[in-house]
């Protein structure tokens, strides 16, 4: 009897430990899955181009408080719109690569669209392909103030008015008479549809898939609560490892004890 009593104590302990180990394991399973899956993706962000893939889901963008752009400036030719949305430039609805600070106007000559932006002239095809970037226009290092045309020539305004043709090799100062005849590019209002489209496109190019995956991994996607939840998950995983080891040691001890008694 006494021998039986001595043996029953560790069995009860082991059973309860098993139960605890199981509950801890079940409660950690979901977190472990999230951590493992997101961890796998994060290990291959470059291969999967996750830093170049952007989220366009409105709910998720709202969840991240990504606000619609405040600054929208647009100029137009009879057929095309050049629009600066914050630091992104669009020809109609197509985004032009690069970041820009200021937009001074757009003109169209012989099927070439010329946009005056920052300190350069961007020459584009009607499809939005960049033909050439003309930097340092006529040696000017100032921001372009305005762009216009006079017959088949291009006029820009910096600290003075300069005229050139589509070859852009020779610039001359505009005369007073020429200045009076310049057809300037003026800001214009965007149609509601295009404005909404550009705003949506702008918002859809901020949040990367990599960022969302990182936030899922750390729990930050749910704010501070998410971080604490992931902390709790980490503690649970530690407990799981410890209880697992403890059970294994107990069983080992039990087996050794059995061997010695037989």
């Amino acid at each position, binding site marked *: 009897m006494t021998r039986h009593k001595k043996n029953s104590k560790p069995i009860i302990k082991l059973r309860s430990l098993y139960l605890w180990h199981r509950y801890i394991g079940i409660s950690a399973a979901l977190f472990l899955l999230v951590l493992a899956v997101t961890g796998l993706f994060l290990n291959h962000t470059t291969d999967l181009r996750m830093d170049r893939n952007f989220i366009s889901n409105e709910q998720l963008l709202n969840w991240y408080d990504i606000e619609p752009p405040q600054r929208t400036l647009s100029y137009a030719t009879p057929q095309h719109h050049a629009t600066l949305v914050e630091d992104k430039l669009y020809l109609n609805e197509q985004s032009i*690569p690069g970041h820009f600070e200021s937009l001074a106007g757009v003109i169209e000559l012989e099927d070439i669209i010329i946009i005056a932006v920052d300190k350069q002239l961007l*020459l584009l095809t009607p499809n939005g392909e960049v*033909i*050439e*970037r003309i930097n340092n226009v006529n040696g000017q290092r100032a921001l372009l103030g305005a762009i216009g045309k006079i017959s088949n020539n291009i006029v820009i305004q910096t600290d003075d008015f300069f005229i050139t043709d589509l070859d852009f*090799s020779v610039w001359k100062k505009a005369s007073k008479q020429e200045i009076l005849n310049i057809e300037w590019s003026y800001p214009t209002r965007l149609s509601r549809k295009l404005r909404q489209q550009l705003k949506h496109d702008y918002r859809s190019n901020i949040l990367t898939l990599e960022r969302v995956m990182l936030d899922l991994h750390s729990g930050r996607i749910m704010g501070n609560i998410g971080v604490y939840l992931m902390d709790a998950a980490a503690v649970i995983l530690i407990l799981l490892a410890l209880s697992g080891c403890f059970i294994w040691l107990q069983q080992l001890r039990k087996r050794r004890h059995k061997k010695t008694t037989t």
Partner: protein
Amino acid sequence: MRLFTLLLICLLPIEALSRGVYQQPTDFINDVFQNNPPAAKRLWITGERKKISNDILGHPPRSLRVRYWGQDSRTAWILEEIGKEKPITVGIVINKNRVERVKVLIFLESRGWEVRHDFFTEQFKNIGLQSNKELDKSIDGISGATLSVRALKKLSRLALYLHSQTDFAHDAS
């Protein structure tokens, strides 16, 4: 006051001092052609040229047309390539289908500015292009400047290829 200024300069991060415009592109062109540059010409990068340029750069070229200056068997090119995030502007001179000079003109990246030094750019001297559009000599890298080194190698290959597409390449033969 002087000591204070000196201390302030010493406290500035070294890369902040290293970024910027080292030479204006127009000054580079004037320098190459002894203050008498020829009129700029343009080369369209379309069709087969676009495909090969895409292979060299690993992405489509930034523009469909590129400006260059040529005289006899020499051409000078101002080309741009993104190192990591920002463009590196490089002046490259090709003479008789070989690189004569490579110079970093504008560097805006926060890392990898070591590529502007002569000890690195001198390696490109007299390098040519193989039929597979690779350089015919290897270039030693700089640790911590891998992306900038890669950008300069790509631009040298591109300049050599674009030179081969001009009339000035045939003057050399």
